[in-house]
């Protein structure tokens, strides 16, 4: 079987973004995932987010590991370069790629097995390095591609399709990211496009590492009764603490909310995210409080969603910390990289 190319028939009536491109021009190859797989909805949300941002397709670099989720980078923005790396190691590819060219927009898509089992180390260290990228985990609690084994995000007590209960505590990527000092941490649900799209857009515009844990049910291996990552369970137990609207740079904020109810966070490129707190006691700028809030809600059987934590990540971002030149390293002319023959001649004195 070869990959399936979608026929690209441009309908004159399709809406266009600032670049004059339609949503179709942000699509990729035809998905080969199971019908109803949560991952396909995330793909659709990414297409929507990129279109809405008027991102030039070639400005995007799509990175992934291995898994059903990691396949999805082929299913959006075919005008962007993609890299389907090895299992669990996408963060290192992203780090190297970002080091080489700081100008592109890096979007990594991974799975819970890819990121929290085999790739936990690389994920943690990419967060620590504050690599400027959006990192999406399509979290279904199982290894889809290898047919349904529990992954490291499986909740205690959740049941496999064959009825066994998981006994090991899960790794929660949101808590992990908060612990490691990530400056953009969100959780969402593949079925909630209204919540997900602005989060993706804000994450792409965030300067620094942005993590979005997206509950994305596996209809084939983990959508049964007794699973805590099924569509039904997710709809019932996942609740937003904060709602986010993404406002592109040039746009006006349309509706005003009462003081205290909404906060506006300005992103690095001048775009803004307006946060509406659904729980008045919640403060997304306070990392420690956010951590505490999630834990407390979890004890009540509730999963917090929305933009859980956001702070300025620009100072500790990889290149800012390194003081890398503004020109992407892959474009610095060779003449500026070689110290030249004379300098080498001088240096040789050290070794005499």
């Amino acid at each position: 079987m070869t990959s399936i190319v979608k026929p690209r028939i441009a309908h004159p009536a399709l809406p266009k973004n600032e670049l004059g491109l339609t949503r179709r021009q942000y699509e990729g190859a035809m998905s080969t995932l199971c019908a109803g797989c949560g991952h396909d909805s995330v793909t659709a949300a990414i297409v929507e987010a990129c279109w809405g941002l008027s991102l030039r397709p070639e400005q995007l670099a799509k990175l992934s590991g291995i898994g059903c989720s990691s396949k999805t980078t082929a299913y959006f923005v075919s005008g962007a370069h993609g890299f389907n790396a090895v299992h669990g190691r996408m963060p290192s590819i992203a780090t190297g790629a970002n080091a080489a060219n700081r100008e592109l927009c890096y979007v990594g898509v991974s799975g819970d097995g890819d990121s929290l089992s085999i790739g936990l180390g690389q994920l943690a260290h990419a967060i620590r390095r504050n690599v400027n990228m959006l990192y999406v985990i399509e979290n279904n609690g199982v290894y889809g591609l290898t047919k349904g084994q529990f992954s490291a995000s499986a909740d205690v007590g959740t049941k496999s399709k064959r009825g066994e209960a998981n006994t090991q505590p899960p790794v929660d990527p949101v808590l992990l990211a908060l612990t490691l000092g990530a400056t953009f941490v969100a959780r969402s649900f593949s079925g909630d496009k209204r919540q997900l799209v602005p989060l993706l857009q804000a994450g792409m515009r965030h300067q620094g590492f942005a993590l979005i844990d997206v509950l994305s049910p596996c209809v084939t291996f983990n959508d049964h009764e007794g699973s805590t990552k099924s569509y039904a369970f997710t709809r019932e137990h996942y609740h937003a603490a904060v709602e986010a609207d993404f406002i592109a740079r040039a746009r006006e904020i349309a509706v005003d909310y009462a003081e205290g109810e909404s906060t506006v966070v300005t992103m690095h490129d001048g775009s803004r995210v307006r946060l509406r707190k659904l729980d008045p006691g919640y403060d997304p700028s306070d990392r420690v409080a956010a951590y505490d809030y999630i834990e407390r809600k979890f004890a009540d059987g509730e999963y917090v969603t929305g933009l859980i934590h956001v702070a300025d990540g620009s100072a500790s971002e990889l290149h800012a910390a390194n003081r890398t030149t503004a020109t992407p390293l892959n474009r610095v002319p060779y003449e500026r990289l070689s110290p030249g023959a004379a300098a080498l001649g001088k240096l040789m004195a050290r070794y005499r």
Partner: protein
Amino acid sequence: MPATQPAPDRLNDFVIKFANVNGTGSASANTLIMKAIFRSGVPVVGKNYFPSNIQGLPTWYEIRVSADGHQARGGRVDLMLAMNIETYARDVKEVAPGGFLMYDSTWPRSALLERHDITVLGIPLAKLCNENFDGVRNRVLMKNICYAGALAALVDIDLEIVRALVTEQYAKKPKLADANLKAIELGYRYAREYLPCPLPLRVRRLDRTAGHVLIDGNTAAALGCLYAGATVGAWYPITPSTSLMDAFRGFCERYRVDPATGERNFVVLQAEDELAAIGMVVGASWNGARAFTPTSGPGISLMNEFVGLAYYAEVPCVIFDVQRVGPSTGMPTRTQQCDLLLCAYASHGDTRHVLLFPADPGECFTLAVAAFDLAERLQTPVFVLSDLDIGMNDWMVPELAWDDAYRPDRGKVLSAAEVEQLEKFQRYVDRDGDGIPYRTLPGTSPKAAYFTRGSGHNQSGAYTEDSAEYQQVVDRLTRKFATAATLVPKPVLEGPGNRPVGILSLGSCDGPIREALGELARRGYALDYLRVRGFPFGAEVEAFLAGHERVLVIEQNRDAQLKSLLTLETAVPKHKLHSILHYDGLPLTAQFVTDAVVAALGAGGRRAAAAV
């Protein structure tokens, strides 16, 4: 006093060995002596035998003084500086008959001084330093400098040269310079007064180091990376490769920082492990930067999965393997050439890689540059296989020189305009018949975009599980590897090439082999010698193997890995090859080579080898 006098011809031809305790600051004293001899115009080489430890274990440093410029380990000790009580007994034993031993006579050590065929020289170093310096740490440090002063008197090094070196080294710390000069003076004067200076082991000024430097291979390789225009380095620390990245970072801080803005033209990433280090290199190279990672055997083991991906997805990357003794953690601070097969076939599935084999620091510099050009030209991983002996020891090599006309070979990279000319961009099509496809960099244009994947892909880069499509791609990779054989650096032939017996070797075996060839010739054995510098082997290697009745393959590992590679990758019949293997962890010596060649060829072999 002295028992047997050494032969008088030990002028500019002897070995000094320093037995120290690591972590006591002996390295600077030993380097000082070596540099002073070098500045006297007399060729030297330094070999460091150090433990995998930070403080308190024995460590040895060997300086070979060789008017003829031999770079191999000497294999004998003429003058031992026995500064470590723990190893004193074995250090005494190691001195060659007629040789000398100097020790700290502050404390008596009579029971151990049992050799009558060597001259024992005592100098009360601790006492001298305790009387003249304050502070425990300072006294320990100055003891080393003090013996360097005594040594200068004993082997007749011009004190002015030593003084100049100290003054240069501490140009910015005048207090330290004064203390060091005082310690030198103390040792020098004591030796002149109480010891038989100068010894028959003497340094006499020559003019044979002009145009040369004393440099280690890791520093030279780092300079190669700098001059090749590498901008991204990723690594996880491991002996004996760590100093390569330390040096690269140091050079970058000096030459790649904008003095006005402080902005840097490089990124050095200390990865969490070697899996991440190679991933970063693959990511950066995929994105068009020149990127590299230095490591050693255990690191290569961890990198295997990514190396296979880079091979199949055709992403350039440069990997330095500064080899150390294996298997497993092995002896981390000892040398070997034991990763040849590991690197040649790294990763699962049908993979074969380009390898380069520098023989000394000079080649670490030039082959580092070649590695980047080849990696980008061939769009594949390239391994530079150095070893601990080359990487961490100071060798005397011609000054590294640079041609400002050099421009990196970025290989077949299409620009947006070039892609625009095509009907369709196809990542993995062989347009030129050399097996090398065209690539594009992220950010070029939507038409230039493709999907990089390790899973089955067809010529366009699209996912496939179709047998014919898959095979088309891997068959082209075989053709690409054949192209690589024509591009890797040519082997170096020594001798007329038509002698019946030849030696074939690589890397750091070169010095000992060249030295041995002289001795063998004197004994009537005339052999050709081919040093391979790259893998896949080219036509010259095939011709050498075909043109000799017998080929002695010399290498530093137990399992004859080079010989295995030759039998696997050339047409040579196995029975033609005879292995000479050295794998005790110490650098090869000329004596070992000579003995092994003589043993292999026997007396009849002398005629066979000579008959031309």
